[in-house]
């Protein structure tokens, strides 16, 4: 058992959550633009790329999405509303995601978890809105750096 822990320690020290989202798009073809609206009506334009996880991308751009469980589908802190126009372009929510959404305050028809949205070219122009009950705040207002 001891060896297992050491092995995991080594593995974990070289892989990071959300590292991919810190890479800039290599070409314009790769770019996927997203507009994130907050509850106060502010709009944030986020320049993402194919394959980005919306939660980690938002964190990079300091848009308010919490993600307490780090995209492991164990909480609801990245609850968002997806603009209806784009809703059908997303893969259907899994049973686990639906189960978690059941616990989210202010649940709507177009509720999803940000951590389950992976960008593709079809989603260019995606509009999402944060509900009233999720905010994210960086400690000490620092500019996030990749781990």
């Amino acid at each position: 058992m001891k060896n297992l822990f050491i092995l995991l320690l080594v593995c974990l020290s070289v892989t990071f959550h959300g590292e991919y989202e810190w890479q800039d798009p290599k070409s314009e073809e790769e770019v996927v633009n997203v507009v994130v609206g907050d509850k106060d009506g502010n709009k944030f334009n986020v320049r993402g790329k194919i394959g980005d996880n919306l939660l980690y991308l938002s964190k990079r751009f300091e848009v308010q999405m919490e993600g307490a469980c780090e995209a492991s589908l164990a909480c609801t802190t990245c609850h968002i509303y997806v603009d209806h126009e784009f809703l059908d372009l997303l893969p259907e929510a899994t049973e686990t995601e639906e189960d978690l959404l059941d616990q989210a305050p202010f649940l709507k028809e177009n509720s999803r978890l940000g951590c389950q949205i992976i960008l593709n070219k079809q989603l260019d122009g995606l509009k999402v809105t944060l509900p009233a009950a999720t905010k994210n705040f960086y400690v000490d207002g620092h500019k996030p750096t990749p781990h």
Partner: protein
Amino acid sequence: MGAFTRQLGCIKRVIHQSQVRYSSTHHHVCVIGSGPAGFYAAQHLLKLRAAAQKPLQLDMFEKLPVPFGLVRYGVAPDHPEVKNVINTFTSVLKNKSVRFVGNIQAGQHVTLQQLVNAYHAIILCYGATSDRLLNIPNENLITSAREFVGWYNGLPANANLPVSLKSCNTALIIGHGNVALDIARILLTNESSLQGTDIAEYALKELKNSGVKQVLIVGRRGVLQVAFTIKEFREMVKLPNVGWDIQTEETVSDATLEALPRARKRLTSLILDSCKTNQAASPEKSWTLKFLRSPEKVERVGDKIHVTFRINKMEGEKAVPTDKLETIPCDIAFRSIGYKGTKLFHDLPFDEATGVIPNNHGKVVDGIYTCGWAGQGPRGVILSTMQNAFDVAKTVSHDLDGSEGSSVKQGFESLNISHRVTHYDDYVKIAEFESKTGNKLTSIDEMMRVCNSV
């Protein structure tokens, strides 16, 4: 799996906080308790004060030598992903304006008056550390679910709970919440699936030798009133080699089901569908969900514990007693009907009936605030606690704006604490030790020995 390593991956040594000196213009704030409410309040307050360019020193007090409260000691060991939030919390601990002070009991090592003299604001986030009681005869024969959860999670206060599962066949759990399902799952799950988690070593050993084959989960109301959530219930119908029996005794019409709000509808549908689901022909273990039963008395009969329930019927959302009784024999019984807050300071208002510190949007009196379960009562998912903590932090920040940083308030140094407290460095030592050995430290003495080792 790898719960310790995950925690360790994000912590690095920092300069010992007590070496830092603060100017008299700092606001000193202390947070009592280092669970989710304390961390989210701290995180947001730091953010707001930094944005306003107002210097802040935040001291986080914890009675145990280690931080994280229920994330470390309440979340089930087979839900390691929920504990990922420790990474975010660790970034708060590493903030240069934060000092973790563990192994200190507020109200005992330090009085409220001392804290009031030392801090511009005090935020009470110490959760709920006792139980709601059934208030029935011989209740002492029933094991507290909260203590059992503390036991398998290695909480020092519960590490010596007398738990003997070897000669048990039937376990009875009173309550229909997520804690009840956590306990049922831990008792029924194959012990091998708990290996490599941060479950206490003694608990793993006890579960390996457990004789429990049947778990009865009994609630006082009906199928439409259960308090557990769908994620936890779905895990119950997915346990390998475990069968079940759901004894609803009520009919839920399609029209009723359709009219329910989404979450309640999906949960009820799953429960009702699970009544009909095909199960393994000869499951090794099983659970039974029983409704409409309120416990009235407990007796020891030979080796067994007999719990007698009053059978209820539902009138709207209310359980109404009938004249029928049912006695259920079992080998171990758990009380899982909710947590309750406790009083920490004799000189601060406290509502004994509800176990909550009375407050107005988080404000208790001038300079004293509360958030999380201590102020809201013990319910809700982490998101609810987070939102409440953010709101209270906003109020604290607003009030700090109205008070100048005063040199009269000197923070931690002025408390003159003489016993050995722990700081972030000590926690790092404990986390490293646990990662190295693969075992959670379950006594305060052991933790302090590791902290004091060179």
